[in-house]
């Protein structure tokens, strides 16, 4: 299926917002504006973008420690994301979470997690809710190749299968879990192929090609919305920055490998198919947005320490 230029431009714009936001975050990290960890998604933007373009605001996304891209693609503003990492009251989680704990239920970003695994189960749970409540909403989990070796993967995919839950499992296979290559951590590194073990459809796509991701996700979302049950999508991709800002990025992978993947940068790949002046216009627009977001975040107040213990329970 071929997409309209409008669709392509929209996809490009989302990817660019993610890219520019995170480049700004990386700079902010260097000057100490970010207090905790910061895992960027640079190089993997096509995945969140291609998947979320098929989702509605009332679909539910559950994500992981590397969640900036999912948040932005699902509708969180760069300003709210940056403010969160800067620890401000205007942050998407009111400064409570930082990079790994992003919550924006109003746009269907149900949470990212500093623990690897739970998002898979929670997305199945959203699928359960949506089926129980007779809606056509879907739940989506984004997770890494590393998470695919965790028991949560096994239990989550199996439950989604037997109960035909409207859930899409998106494995972002960037070939490493921190510095451990998937070939060393998985007896069978073909993640999509493992779908058979659960009796569900599994597809592997080029995760740097946003259109391929978009198409695979469209099919999976359709299947889920129409009662056809879950799908596992493995997106082969690559993070081109270090595992986390400030960490070393040598020893475990060669510069050649990194360069080869940079040559297949998802933004470049898509830009090649689009009019240069449109790209330039988007670039300018996004720059303005990110600059404003940065100013907003930097100038936002820190949360009031008196609020540090509110909302542990529902009544207060």
């Amino acid at each position, binding site marked *: 299926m071929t997409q309209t230029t409008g669709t392509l431009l929209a996809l490009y714009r989302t990817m660019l917002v993610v890219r520019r936001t995170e480049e700004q975050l990386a700079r902010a990290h260097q000057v100490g504006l970010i207090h905790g960890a910061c895992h960027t998604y640079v190089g993997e933007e096509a995945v969140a973008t291609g998947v979320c373009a098929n989702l509605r605001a009332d679909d539910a996304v559950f994500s992981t420690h590397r969640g900036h891209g999912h948040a932005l693609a699902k509708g969180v503003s760069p300003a709210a994301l940056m403010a969160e990492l800067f620890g401000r009251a205007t942050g998407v989680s009111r400064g409570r979470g930082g990079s790994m704990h992003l919550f924006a239920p109003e746009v269907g970003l149900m949470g990212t997690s500093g*623990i690897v695994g739970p998002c898979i189960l929670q997305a199945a749970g959203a699928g359960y809710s949506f089926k129980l409540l007779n809606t056509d909403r879907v739940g989506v989990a984004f997770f890494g190749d590393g998470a695919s070796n965790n028991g949560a993967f*096994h239990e989550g995919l199996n439950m989604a299968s037997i109960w035909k839950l409207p859930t899409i499992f998106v494995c972002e296979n960037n070939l490493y879990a921190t510095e451990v290559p998937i070939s060393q951590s998985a007896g069978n590194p073909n993640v999509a192929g493992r779908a058979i073990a659960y009796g569900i459809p599994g597809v592997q796509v080029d995760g740097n090609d946003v259109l391929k991701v978009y198409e695979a996700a469209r099919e999976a979302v359709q299947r889920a919305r129409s009662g056809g049950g879950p799908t596992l999508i493995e997106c082969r991709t690559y993070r081109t920055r270090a595992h986390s800002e400030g960490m070393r990025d040598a020893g475990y992978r060669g510069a050649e490998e990194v360069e080869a993947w940079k040559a297949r940068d998802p933004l470049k790949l898509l830009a090649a198919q689009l009019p240069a002046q449109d790209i330039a216009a988007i670039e300018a627009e996004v720059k303005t947005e990110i600059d404003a977001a940065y100013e907003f975040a930097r100038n936002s107040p820190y949360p009031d320490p008196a609020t540090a213990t509110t909302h542990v329970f529902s009544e207060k």
Partner: protein
Amino acid sequence: MRELTYTAAAREALAAAMAKDPSIFVVGEGIGARGGNFNTTTGLYDLYGPMRLRDTPIAERGFIGLCTGAAMTGSRPVVDFMFLDFILDAMGELINQVAKIQYMSDGRLKMPIVLRGSIGVGGSAATHHSGSYYSIFAHIPGFRVALPSTPYDAKGLFNTALRGDDPVMFLEHKLLLNTKGPVPEEDYAIPFGQASVVRQGGRDCRVTVVALAAMLRQTLEACDWLAKDGISVEVIDPRTVAPLDMDTILQSLHCTGRLLIVDETFAPCGIGAEIAAQAVDRALDDLDAPVKRLNGAQTPTPYSPPLEAAVIPNAATIEAAIRDLLAE
């Protein structure tokens, strides 16, 4: 008044809630057509079918994680976990996710999930079917922890659990499941954090005993024996350990001057330690004697009857502990 078993009382609350609220569903092993290992869901499958009474694979972490996501998206899951020991496999989901989601989302998400099932030593269930880890859940911010000791409390506390928006550990001692007691037909809810003064000590009472779950019955038996010697005891059942109604305990202590906490679970860092610590913090001047704890032995639970009996308090050891405390 009508008498029901403890299990039937809780089931009545569940059935009524499910009739009213279609967003409630139950998950567990054998809670569908089978009606639950402990008859917790008998009859409900026929009414509501598999979507609302869902037999699960043996994947405790998985289905609790699933229920977490469901609770975040408009459903009200009830996890029927059979034995508390089994869901230790889900502690990551419980402590890192369930207990934290409301806080981390700054109150924009609720977490209306009820986890219910059996606890306690008894019947040679041995070490993988005897755990009562309520002090652990009381330690962690974000959980409500209910320990009903009577059918009346089981229904009333379960109603509260099902109506709130917080994660609730609803823990049913295995030796209580088939005990009977009066249970009103009408709807009622017992708020969390309200202890019950199960036995009034009277004016000349010189000792307060706090007893939890199955230890309450043992304590009451000991009190009957003591009463024959003219010794009166005030007995308090906290009913929930999070929140903990310390005020009721301290009021009693103020009158009696002596406090014993009877808890079949492990002593170190247990709820008895918490009660004692609060007593010495807030009521030192009321203390006529050391605060005493009577706990289960610090050991895994053995199987053989004489061994099993040796690792938990009973009416006789409770009686002795009360006499010792009065002698201090």
